[in-house]
């Protein structure tokens, strides 16, 4: 049976969402009997997290090397490709996260393997097996097959349904990659502080985004209030990032982040193609704009033609009322 390796990223006591989605998909495939699935993770792993992972995957392979405690592209690429070669895996699959997209191309070269990056769907039952991935910022999608085995695949977060598997009790294996001295030639000096509780845009289920229509940096409070109430992450357009109203990390679009949430609410955003390219795979898009002819409405499921300074607080108030009622 062909083996698929799922690369799992963890954060403290949590499985990263992008990895969780793959584990759910992997458990489904494993139950289908067509593939054997193994999850691989690096670095520290708490008991609670280990127990959680073992309910999600038939086999968890944990590399405990000190050299893998923090991320390095060379360390991760060599350790993962080494294991894939050892077990003759058919496929490595990982979240198309910053880290996943950074080191897996190196792993593909080490394995002399093909790579399919940032896929949004898989046709597991097709022969040949194919993946769908956006190109040109989502203007078109390509159906891609691979001739070489193994193949290395990264999957855009929010592409696979998160249906928790039941009755899985995985096997736990501890390993060492034993990377030769000098494999890793980058050194992490320091890591910045994460915003507490903030879900990264690329993995967020809910996003509230604002553009020039907010008129001033301080007016983003209207966006933040609504976002905080529903547990959404705040996004922004290129022009407001360039105007220094928001951090670069908040930018959605061609030169910023590509997002795929269940709900994308955008206010005061006209719909420049640069922005659309970053959010067009969102499931439900709600646009609020004063201009009934704004291009953003061509890409939205629901539109409200109105002043965001009235509509946003009214939405926040309405949700608060509903929450109070329970």
């Amino acid at each position, binding site marked *: 049976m062909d083996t698929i390796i799922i690369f799992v990223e963890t954060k403290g006591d949590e499985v990263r969402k992008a990895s969780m989605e793959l584990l759910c998909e992997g458990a489904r495939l494993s139950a289908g009997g067509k593939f054997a699935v193994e999850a691989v993770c690096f670095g520290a792993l708490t008991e609670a997290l280990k127990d959680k992972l073992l309910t999600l995957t038939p086999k968890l392979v944990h590399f405990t090397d000190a050299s893998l405690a923090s*991320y390095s*592209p060379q360390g991760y690429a060599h350790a993962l490709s080494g294991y894939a070669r050892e077990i003759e895996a058919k496929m490595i699959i990982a979240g198309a996260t*910053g*880290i996943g*997209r*950074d*080191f897996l*191309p*190196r792993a*593909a*070269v080490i394995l002399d*393997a*093909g*790579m*399919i*990056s*940032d896929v949004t769907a898989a046709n597991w039952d097709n022969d040949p097996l*194919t993946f*769908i991935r*956006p*190109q*040109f910022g989502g203007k*078109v999608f*390509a*159906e*891609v*097959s*691979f*001739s070489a085995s193994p193949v290395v695949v990264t999957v855009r977060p929010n592409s696979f349904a998160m249906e928790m598997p039941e009755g899985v009790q995985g096997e736990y294996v501890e390993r060492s990659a034993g990377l030769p001295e000098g494999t890793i*030639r*980058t*050194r*992490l*000096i*320091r*890591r*910045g502080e994460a*915003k507490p509780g903030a879900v990264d845009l690329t993995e967020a289920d*809910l996003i509230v985004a604002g553009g020039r229509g907010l008129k001033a940096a301080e007016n983003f409070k209207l966006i933040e209030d609504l976002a905080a109430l529903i547990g959404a992450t705040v996004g922004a357009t290129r022009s407001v990032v360039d105007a220094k109203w928001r951090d*670069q*990390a908040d*930018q959605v679009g*061609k*030169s910023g982040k590509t997002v795929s949430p269940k709900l994308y609410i955008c206010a005061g955003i006209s719909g420049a*193609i*640069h922005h659309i390219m970053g959010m*067009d795979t969102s*499931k*439900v898009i709600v646009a609020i704009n004063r201009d009934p002819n704004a291009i953003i409405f061509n890409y*939205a*499921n*629901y*539109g*409200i033609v*109105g002043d965001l300074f009235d509509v946003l607080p*009214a*939405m926040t*108030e*309405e949700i608060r009322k*509903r929450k109070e009622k329970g």
Partner: protein
Amino acid sequence: MNIVVLIKQVPDPEALVEIAASGKDLNIEPKFAINLFDEFAIEEALRLKEKHGGTVKVICLGGPKAIEALRTAIAMGADEAALIEDGSFAARDGYDTALVLSGALKKETFDIILCGRQAIDADRGEVPQMVAEFLGLPHVGVIVKLDIADGKATAESALEGVPEVVEVGLPAIFTAQKGLNEPRVPLITGVMKAMKVQIPRFTLEDLGVPKDVQPKTTILRYLPRKKRPAVQFIEGEPAQAAAEIVRVLVDVERVI
């Protein structure tokens, strides 16, 4: 300090992209530009040269038209440019592209290679890291700051939400993210120079890399983006419209 910048000529972000009737090709409006992230890479190379001395060489793999992208790089201030001319560059996957580029780089001497973090046409974001692995070099991805001192680089990487400061010995490869710098607009003197300069073209045979395209992945067909149903406008005064959209999102779409 010798710096090589790898660039790609891509369709302008505004260019129309349509799927051909066969479903296997794309018809792309012929408006081209330097890949936007590559402009940050060129600019950073020029700034490093201004600070530390040395040369900046820009290399592009592409069709004959890509010479225009290299002229733009010369106009910005690059010392040298070279085109690896390959009519079938578009059929290459990331691995195959990186194989050709690393073949070309084996003939160069450099301390630093700069690339954009992703090309905005194929959107793969694979090639710089693959080139690094083919050449056995370290890389730091998605950088927003780069300092060089004592044969070492200190780079700030914005791979994830949290910035990381990474130290690496040279030679090394870096991929540029927006925020690294503000690319300069070429001066008229630069444009004049770029118009006159002879840009050497190399074939794959010249570089001793395999001419045949043997991609490990193949695009079987193109599919249109999923069409969203026509927008439903929610009417009424702000309070009414707000109540209605919240009702739809909670009860109908069940997303909040």
